[in-house]
């Protein structure tokens, strides 16, 4: 029963997600839900599209890179205008980058140390130059997540905090959609602007981001036609959806790794032989089974990403080898108790913990599993002695470049952060930095191959799985193209409803 009389044909896409969007400030907000809504409310210089992901022009109709890879020049689209009617100018771009760098929040980390307050300069009204402080080959890949805001509106509502309060719930963008209603914790409704500056697109008149916490409820919502798209489905949900009429399942690989970090600096696992013993004792098949639609990782980088080595030799379940390493370790007979933390409520992490527990039994090692809230887990990574022996992490590729994961997860400058709490190896550090700066693709490739080999040698992680992205769509949704980066931050503009 629908209460409203409908005048114009409304084409409203309903997206079920379990993540709330607490903040709409494009330079502050984080999380995939924020990315999803922001990418429809705001525009970046370039977009990412397709599988494999490709950088496509957006606010910038074109851009060029200097040969050393240090200087980018963007030509803005002449039609581009903010939703208050004012044009998107080079000044706006500079204003936006400066604000992002100044606030050091949200996605600022993607360009930390690479773009600084002096990097962005206005060439003319429609031309912007960005000069990198350090070489960064993947720069175009991070641009889709750096939004351009309307300087006038923000200046008008600047307040004492650079407009953060105002932008938290107001939109100053050029996107194809406007925010119509916001009920935090429940739903957000977007409405298509009357005439988007970008031509083309689908027939949607609006979209609703509806928060449904339970994945099974999301699935049922799609099944019953109450939602058009569900974003957080589990493998069990996908199985249940199989052959359901009117539902399209999308199960695609993406660059999101899930592995267990070991405390290489403190405690029993500082012993490389014990680490290797565990790597070989681990039941990879059970992990794969319990992960459902997934593939085992081969080494530290996601399969299929540039530079990944599919022929890399990594540990597999091999109890003899495990025992051999164990006998070389300081605890040749096991008999110790290790701890593993995980985010309470994250089901895959709990499962992998149980798989580990089950595997460790074979080495006569006990496992104490401690579910924790995320802040506590984050806090525990501050120093090696606070960190648990095992620390599982998901790492999403925000851009389709090996540097993303390599730098965050294995560079020692990130020690003390949850992506890489303790692991450090100067050789690996050097390789990562070299990879960042190398513009020659072939040379870059070999750098990453070396790096992977070195990391496998150190056994800082139990390499886990790449879970496939699992989405469900109503079949009347048209125009959806899967992209393996940030794939649940859906762009609504191209979509249509039958």
């Amino acid at each position, binding site marked *: 029963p629908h209460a409203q009389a409908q005048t114009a044909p409304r084409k409203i896409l309903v997206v079920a997600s379990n993540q709330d969007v607490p903040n709409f400030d494009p330079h502050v907000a984080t999380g995939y839900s924020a990315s999803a809504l922001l990418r429809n409310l705001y525009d970046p210089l370039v977009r990412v599209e397709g599988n494999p992901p490709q950088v496509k022009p957006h606010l910038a109709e074109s851009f060029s890179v200097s040969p050393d890879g240090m200087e980018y020049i963007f030509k803005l689209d002449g039609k581009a205008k903010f939703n208050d009617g004012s044009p998107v100018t080079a000044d706006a771009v500079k204003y936006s980058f400066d604000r992002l760098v100044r606030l050091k929040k949200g996605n600022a980390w993607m360009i930390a140390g690479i773009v600084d307050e002096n990097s962005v300069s206005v060439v003319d009204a429609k031309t912007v130059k960005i000069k990198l402080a350090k070489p960064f080959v993947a720069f175009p890949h991070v641009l889709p997540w750096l939004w351009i805001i309307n300087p006038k509106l923000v200046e008008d509502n600047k307040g004492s905090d650079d407009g953060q309060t105002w932008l938290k719930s107001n939109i100053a963008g050029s996107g194809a959609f406007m925010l119509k209603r916001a009920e935090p914790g429940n739903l957000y409704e977007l409405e298509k602007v009357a005439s988007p500056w970008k031509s083309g697109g689908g027939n949607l008149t609006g979209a609703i981001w509806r928060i449904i916490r*339970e*994945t*099974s409820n999301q699935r049922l919502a799609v099944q019953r036609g109450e939602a058009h798209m569900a974003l957080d489905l*589990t493998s*069990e*949900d996908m*199985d*249940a959806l199989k052959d359901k009429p009117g539902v399209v399942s999308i199960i695609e690989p993406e660059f999101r790794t899930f592995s267990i970090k070991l405390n290489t600096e403190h405690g029993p696992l500082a012993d490389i032989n014990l680490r290797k013993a565990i790597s070989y004792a681990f039941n990879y*098949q*059970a992990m794969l*089974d*319990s992960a459902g639609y997934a593939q085992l990782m081969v080494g530290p980088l996601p399969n299929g990403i540039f530079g990944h080595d599919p022929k890399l030799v990594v540990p597999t379940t091999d109890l003899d080898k495990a025992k051999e390493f164990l006998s070389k370790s300081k605890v040749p007979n096991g008999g110790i108790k290790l701890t593993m933390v995980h985010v*309470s*409520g994250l*089901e895959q992490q*709990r*499962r992998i*913990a*149980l*798989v580990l*527990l*089950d595997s460790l*039994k074979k080495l006569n090692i006990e*496992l*104490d*599993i*401690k*579910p*924790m*809230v995320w802040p*506590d887990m984050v806090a525990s990574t501050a120093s090696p002695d606070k960190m648990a022996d095992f620390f599982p992490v998901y790492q999403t590729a925000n851009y389709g470049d090996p540097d993303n994961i390599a730098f965050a997860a294995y560079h020692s400058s990130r020690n003390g952060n949850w992506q890489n709490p303790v692991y450090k190896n100067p050789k690996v550090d050097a390789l990562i930095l070299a990879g960042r700066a190398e513009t020659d693709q072939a040379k870059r490739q070999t750098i990453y191959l070396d790096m992977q080999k070195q990391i496998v040698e150190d056994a800082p992680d139990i390499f886990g799985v790449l879970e496939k992205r699992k989405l469900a769509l109503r079949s009347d949704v048209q125009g959806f193209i899967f992209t393996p980066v940030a794939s649940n931050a859906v762009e609504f503009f191209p979509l249509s409803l039958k």
Partner: protein
Amino acid sequence: MTNHNGAHPSRWQNWQRSIYRFRQSGLSIAGLAIVLVLMLIAVAGSWIVPFPEHISGGINTAARFKPPSSLYWFGTNELGQDVFSLVMAGARVSLIAGFGVVMIAAIIGGLIGALAGYAGGWIDDVLMRLTDLMLTLPSLILAMAIAAALGAGLDNMVFAISMSWWPGFARLMRGEVIAKKEDLFVQAARALGASDSRILLRHVLPNVMSPIIIKMSLDMGFAILAVAALGFIGIGVKPPTPEWGSLLSLARGYLPDYWWTAIFPGLAIFFAVLGFNLLGDGLRDLFDPKARR
């Protein structure tokens, strides 16, 4: 009507009468039976279940989500663990946790209540205002906050729930102590020159224990519910401890297809709570027939 008619039944007759009354009530007997079975399972659980290794976290991913069968009576779960074994093992967790909550709450509440009731004056005022305030706090939210802050684990959970549970005991204890304090036999002892400690220990406390014990038995079921509720919210025990609330909470995601993962833990909570409630009711009728019918 008065019961002071010429004949004065002996203690043993009183017992007989109570047991008769208890036996008269089929529901109390059913409650006792459920509780006894639960205790048996709790004690012998890890020996009598078909897959004891699953209780301590063993998995078998080759047999995920098998429906109930003669091998897996209640089916298997997402890791191929035998749901029957887990549910059986859950009895021990729930019983220990429920008992822990009730004991701690009764001890803390009992001490505070007895002190407030016996001392009276400003001590009473301060303690009771505190108790009243605690009662106005939303108990589940309080327990959740404490449990979440302390981290997962049976002990933390029991502690967290007890912290919101004791005021009920404090109030009961205080009321009973005040009532008994005014009783003539206590005044008689005072008139004899008995010391406060003697009065409290010898005269007051022994005579207020039965309502406390009755409340404890009645609360057992609710404590088990509270434990399961925290587990259901996801603030509960640590894996691999099989706890009914957490089992149910996990299984929610698998409804309706893998219904067995949810239904059996749910029913287990239901029957355990029912058993203790029935037994508690029966005991109350037994010790305190006037209280409620």
